[in-house]
């Protein structure tokens, strides 16, 4: 830790066979399990913590809020309709005379419930489907993945809306409706993960050591594929909340007097024309804030689980090029490749880690400023990884950009 050139020297030692001190790339101290490392990485990310805090706040607001701020949400009161904020109604009342603040809490409950429940359905189905396809291989895999291809090419919002004309109205039905059409993305991700994991050395090692098939699946495959699943759950939640908002806005959401944020915005064109701003912007703001927070958490989780991006030990990291130590809080002194810009202007110094999600997402965000292979060893693999596949495997992909799984938005 003291000698800045230590990793390089160790690396040289490995090549020349002089030293067996450790694997190339530096000393590896096993100090915690992968999960703990990922958790620490996650909580290092300020935006992620903010996102998580916002989600927790929304859960408290929507589920505990009605206990603190009880309001009538079942008896229509036309005499009290469309009141501006004030006089006992912090956010005014809607056209049925319901207290808008209480209504937002109620709508938030359903948004959260449907978001998490449909994400759970989609994840369970998708994980099983993808794992079975990946493990079975051959013709079973081919047929199962063609079914996924077919389902993926049907625009999600449209098919859900068509079915919502008959099967809608309750939290359970809507969750089922969204979940049953949204499992294709996780299934592709899990299949891809299983396919790569199957060929990895540690699986072969386990097999050679005589592990049973069951042990390999339960102890090695599933825990390793789980990170992909967990990351995807957050995006599933965000997308389900958005889809629910679209369905509600078009008028096919929950049965009155139950409501969701989308349902509440159903008459928003009129509210805007009439000047009832309190019926539009608080709800819309909550919707955007919750989806944004969920996306932030998802992005941070993906970075945290990406082993290639992970610090191997706590404390200062060092640049492989200049061997200077950095800390996650400070801007790095690594300037990347000597480009014209960095020579002429000192301000072009690139931080090892951009604050939050602004950097390249899927890969090499440690050194996203320059993305040079000299500065950041992960940059090479990430840019090479996407060669033959014509999929949009840009490193800024919102979901882990598996070369096989091109779809990144699936409304």
């Amino acid at each position, binding site marked *: 830790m003291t000698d800045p050139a230590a990793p390089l020297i160790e690396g040289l030692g490995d090549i020349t066979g002089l030293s067996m001190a450790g694997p190339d790339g530096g000393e590896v101290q096993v100090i915690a399990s992968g999960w703990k490392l990922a958790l620490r990485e996650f909580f290092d990310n300020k935006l992620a913590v903010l996102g998580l805090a916002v989600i927790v706040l929304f859960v408290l607001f929507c589920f505990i809020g009605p206990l603190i701020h009880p309001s009538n949400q079942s008896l229509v009161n036309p005499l009290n309709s469309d009141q501006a904020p004030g006089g006992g109604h912090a956010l005014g009342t809607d056209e049925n005379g319901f207290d808008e603040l209480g209504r937002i809490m109620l709508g938030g409950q359903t948004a959260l419930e449907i978001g998490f429940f449909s994400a759970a359905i989609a994840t369970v189905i998708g994980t099983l489907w993808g794992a079975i396809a990946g493990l079975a291989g051959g013709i079973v895999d081919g047929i199962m993945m*063609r079914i996924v*291809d*077919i*389902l993926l*090419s*049907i*625009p*999600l*919002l*449209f*098919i859900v*809306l*068509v*079915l919502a*004309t008959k099967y809608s109205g309750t939290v359970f039905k809507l969750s089922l409706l969204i979940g049953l059409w949204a499992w294709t993305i996780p299934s592709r991700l899990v299949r891809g993960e299983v396919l790569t994991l199957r060929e990895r050395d540690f699986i072969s090692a386990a097999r050679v050591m005589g592990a049973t098939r069951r042990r390999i699946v339960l102890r090695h495959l599933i825990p390793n594929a789980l990170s992909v699943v967990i990351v995807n759950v957050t995006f599933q939640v965000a997308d389900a909340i*958005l889809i629910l908002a*679209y369905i509600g*806005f*078009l008028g096919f959401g929950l049965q009155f007097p139950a409501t969701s944020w*989308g349902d509440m*915005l159903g008459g*928003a*064109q009129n509210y*805007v*024309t009439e000047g009832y701003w309190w019926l*539009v912007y608080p709800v*819309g703001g909550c*919707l*955007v804030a919750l989806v*944004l927070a969920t*996306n*932030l958490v998802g992005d941070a989780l993906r970075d945290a689980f990406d082993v290639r991006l992970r610090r191997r030990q706590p404390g200062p990291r060092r640049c492989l090029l200049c061997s200077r130590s950095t800390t996650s809080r400070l801007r790095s002194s690594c300037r*990347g*490749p000597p*480009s*014209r*810009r960095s020579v002429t202007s000192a301000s072009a110094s*690139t931080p090892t880690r*951009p604050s939050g*999600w*602004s950097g390249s*997402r899927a890969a090499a965000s440690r050194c*996203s*400023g320059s*993305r*040079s292979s000299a500065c950041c060893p992960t940059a090479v693999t990430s840019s090479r990884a996407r*060669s*033959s596949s*014509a999929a*949009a495997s*840009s*490193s*800024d*992909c*919102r979901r882990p950009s598996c070369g096989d799984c*091109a*779809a990144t*938005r*699936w*409304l």
Partner: protein
Amino acid sequence: MTGYIIRRLATAVIVVLGVAAIIFALLHWLAPTPAYDVLGAKAQPAAVASWDKLHGYDRPEIEQFFSYLNKLLHLNFGYSYKLDQSVSALIKENAGRSAYLTGAALVLSLIIAIPLGIMQAVRRNTIEDYTFTTLNFVLYSMPSFFLGLILIQFLALDWGIFPPTVSDSITSAWQAFTHPMQLTLPIVTLAAINVASFSRYMRSSALDNLAQDYIRLARAKGLSERAVLSRHLLRNACLPMITLVGLSIPTLLAGNLLTEYLFNYPGLGLLFYTALGNLDYNVLLAYVIVGAILTVLGNLIADIAVAAADPRVRLD
């Protein structure tokens, strides 16, 4: 290359056949017979049965499926008994206006997103970069109708620059084109959603390319920064955009539905919305299948276009 195209085409045909099977099953499940639409909701079972027999709705499902496929091949999407018009005529009537709205929004989003992404990559980790990245992320998390509502509030109602809804006098795509003020808000709303995702990809693609040797070489040759960016970086950084545009078709269709509903602009989206209210399943599922075919085609064309544009892509 030819082999690859043939194989991709074959896959696409299989996928479309699968989609048709699913849509047929749904149609059969949701609306087994249009007899009640024709004869009235209180029609006698005997009358319904004879109507079914007359129009072939009593045949085995598999036989009906093949006649459905045969109709699809002839671009016959069935008949809308609610609107008393064939679905293909309805689609043909509305497609032009929707295509104009969607196409204009797509072009606008590319015109904004490509330079924006390059600018962000060049000025990475500066205030401008962070500002636009934050803005993009908020836009990305925002339902399109909410953005539309905000635009209506400020640009239409408060400042009165644009009309809040599209005027009824706009009846064709050409009229929409010649009355740009009418369609500005819908186009901007639809474009903004795509700008958010496009510019994120563009930024990272430009970042990838900026670190490459050919950029360093171009600079070493003494080219001006403008020439490096516009002649060398732009073309290479835009390659992923081809795929992205191909993949954005479902998003565009969904955005199209919401924007047309919000601004009351008669197109395929509004047709779909009306059909939702009427429970007009022939129209609904016809549009779903058109959307699925467009999605498959978009992926196919994007894949081939990338292969044609990027010599590094090896197809085998």
